[in-house]
């Protein structure tokens, strides 16, 4: 099975995602340039972190119009597993594959540090190898990670169990002090209604080796392998 790592001109976690997939997970990975029009037969698509077009206007606003986004949307709509990390999350909300948007952190500052998130749903292709309620330690690195959606949308997300990750303390408690950016209801990551598109602000690809601080994020990538099975068919939940 093969992961495609989409490269926008200002992506900067593309190499990290590639390294994690190829050299830590041991799966096949290929970069896909944003001007290309197909995903090269990939089974999983990663939209990596970074500043896709400098993001001076709004994070992810311009990337949404890149040629590669049409095949990404088609892939997602056909049920293919898509993971958005950080800027990838922002792009996915801009393109409408995920609801809501990401505002400036409530401290108005860029924040880079280790946080904890609790896995709230394991019936997605990126959490199926985790256990429900598992606490993962992963870094964040963003200035605009403050998840916002109108109350009715938030209620619908909760009702459909689309909240996949929530910020928590080391013991798994969802408390405001553990919410680094002011995200509504502590939301760190979510999925679409069909559950194949998952995005989160923390960086699982930066947390795949204990040498660099944590290996907790590897389960996100391992889940994709488990979800696709040996025949490449998606199965979760």
């Amino acid at each position, binding site marked *: 099975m093969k992961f495609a790592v989409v490269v926008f001109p200002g992506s900067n976690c593309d190499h990290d995602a590639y390294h994690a997939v190829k050299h830590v997970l041991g799966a096949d990975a290929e970069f896909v340039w944003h001007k290309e029009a197909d995903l090269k037969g990939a089974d999983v698509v990663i939209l990596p972190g970074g500043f896709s077009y400098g993001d001076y206007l709004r994070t992810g606003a311009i990337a949404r119009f890149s040629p590669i986004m049409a095949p990404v949307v088609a892939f997602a709509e056909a049920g293919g597993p898509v993971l958005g990390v950080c800027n990838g999350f922002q792009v996915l909300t801009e393109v409408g594959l995920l609801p809501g948007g990401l505002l400036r952190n*409530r401290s108005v500052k860029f924040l880079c540090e280790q946080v904890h998130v609790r896995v709230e749903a394991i019936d997605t292709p990126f959490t199926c190898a985790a256990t429900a309620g598992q606490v993962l330690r992963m870094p964040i690195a963003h200035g605009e990670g403050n998840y916002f959606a109108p109350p009715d949308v938030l209620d619908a997300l909760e009702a459909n169990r689309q909240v996949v990750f929530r910020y928590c303390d080391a013991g798994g408690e969802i408390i405001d002090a553990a919410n680094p950016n002011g995200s509504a209801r502590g939301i760190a990551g979510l999925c679409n209604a069909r559950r194949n598109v998952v995005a989160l602000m923390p960086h699982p690809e930066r947390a795949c080796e204990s040498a660099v601080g944590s290996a907790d994020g590897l389960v996100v990538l391992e889940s994709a392998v488990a979800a696709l099975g040996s025949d490449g068919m998606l199965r979760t939940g």
Partner: protein
Amino acid sequence: MAIDSETLERHGLIPAEYDKILDILGREPSITELGIFSVMWSEHCSYKSSRIHLKTLPTTGARVVQGPGENAGAVDVGDGLVAVFKIESHNHPSFIEPYQGAATGVGGIIRDIFTMGARPIALLNSLRFGPLEDARTRGILEGVVAGIGGYGNSIGIPTVGGEVAFEEGYAGNPLVNVFCLGLAKAGSLVMGQASGAGNPVYYVGAKTGRDGIHGATMASAEFDERSSEKRPAVQVGDPFMEKLLLEACLELMQTDALVGIQDMGAAGLTCSTSEMGSRGGAGIDIDVSRVPQRESGMTPYEIMLSESQERMLMVVKQGREAEVERIFEKWDLHAVPIGEVTTDGQLRVRQDGAIVAEIPNGPLADQAPLYDRPTEPPAYLATSSRLDLEALPELPATDAALRTLLGSPAVASKRWIYRQYDHMVRTNTISPAGMGAGVVRLKGTNRALAMSVDGNGRHSYLDPHLGAMLAVAEASRNVACAGALPIAATNCLNFGNPERPETMWQFARAVAGIGEACRALDVPITGGNVSLYNETDGQAIYPTPVLGVVGVIEDASRVLGRVFPGAESTVLLLGGGEGALGGSEYLKLICGQVAGSLASLSLEAERALQLLLVELAGEGLIRSAHDCSDGGLAVALAECCFDTGGVGAELMMPDAPGDALGDGRIDVSDASMLFGEAPSRVLVSVADDDFGLVRMRAEAAGVPIAGQGRTGGDRIRVSLAGRPVLDIAVAEAETAWRQGLERYFEDRAA
């Protein structure tokens, strides 16, 4: 147009320099030519006051691949890789527009690194501000930190460390020094050289505008209330453009189509054309009407002197143009040919074909005036060295003093700063910021690189020679504490007006100190930057040499940090015991004085200590290492206990002198033991089983063990000759340390 004295003055040129121009040209210069000379011969570009001193620095060594003279230095780090690194200042722009000034400083140093063909993998920053009690200073700090983060985070280079200090003297003239390190394959470095007659000269990157004209001359003059007129010299950084340039240039360098490349930094097109020409012994002929322009009606003078950011100049092989253009198009950049290399050694500038400037490259770049400026020891030294320890007011209890020190922004946790920097992107950062030196692993090898930037303006003020040596020693000691063998250094020399003999004396003494220490510690200088005229309204900063040292760790799994691994370890103080109160943080903060003599430095002892640390770390015999710097032994011991989850430690100093005054008070000698500052002292933790071996190794290396103790409990304790002199709960100390910097900004967070 005739060149009158007012025009000369506006260009910062003196009559003797003008005569030299007449001599070189054999005629009167045009205004464009005068502008070109003025920026090339500005202090910033020509190093005319500093060069004779810089020439005394050691710049060679077995590992040095590229010394000073190119865009950055380079050293061999093994496994067929070279590390390319340099430090740069952006002091003046950061004062007048903190965010953009600092951001464009980061942009500049990154360009210096990738221009050499190296992929930038780490940034560090060294910052100096006035006291944080001042709202304006807080605003500057916030802007500078946001700007450094804003640029580095966006482009995806981790900021893995740095330092920050606060002293009155920087209130009107903050210092923002940025260090960048990149990695290249050995033998693949690209030079800033023009050669091969007929080869096209390409321009790529942002369009040229009127912004930043005379930035280099601005960095070569003092500040006063009239400086606001020069303000448009600050630019808005475009990290996205730089990211495109970085990727496109590195991609181009994979081919062999490139002859030479240089970024357009200070003095823009002028500096890049003439330096590339003179390095390659070639001429360059360009037409400014082909330069992409953002504004209409720009004159050749303006185009040649513009300092618009994010631009590069390249010489490529004739016949390879299409290939080069294609690579840039891929990144949505348009490389445009603006001229070609010639054989006649002239920098020839045309506008629509007509020649508007013609200057021989060699003399322009290399025959800049050189000054051996007069030096004279400053008068303050006669009194500042006097410190009557007996006359100090009654000293506070040691736990209160420690709390005060830990809670002062200079010593406190710098988390408020480094959490705004992406210090993990590229997944190489082994030692997260705050753990000591910045350490990045080199994927595909077993190695890691450690780097640290250090300086102490107060020390250098009291003793420029020793202060500079201490800065070299501290930076390389920090690297050794991570387990890395220090291999090379870069330096940023921040001083006042060199035309004052006192400043020039400080400068000369500092450079001598750096040279001496770098020789003894075997860290040759591969490059650097000089920032003079750091004065506002006649008030000079502390003389502030900042050293950046790079070290190699053979086995990345053996990297050490500051933090004790937990309870039940042996703690050792390697090196000497006593510190000096002269020039210390304690003396300033607790006693309100900046005076006295600094502790002396034995370079042999320092070298022995550093080599011992590298050896012990490499064999896995020590588990943590942290040097005693600001705040002395007590602060260092406390810092080893922080971030452990509250694990305490006790340290016993058997041979300590002095008697207690009783009733909880302490005397000056106790204070020197606990809070005095001295180089060559490192706290390490050792597994009990390894203690005997470590002691033997230390003995063999001639490194004394001045104190011994254990981790455990939840208090920080020190005893001198069996007499308890410090006892404080880790939690209490850690709270003070955590809040020391943050508390100044609390009201600003939602």
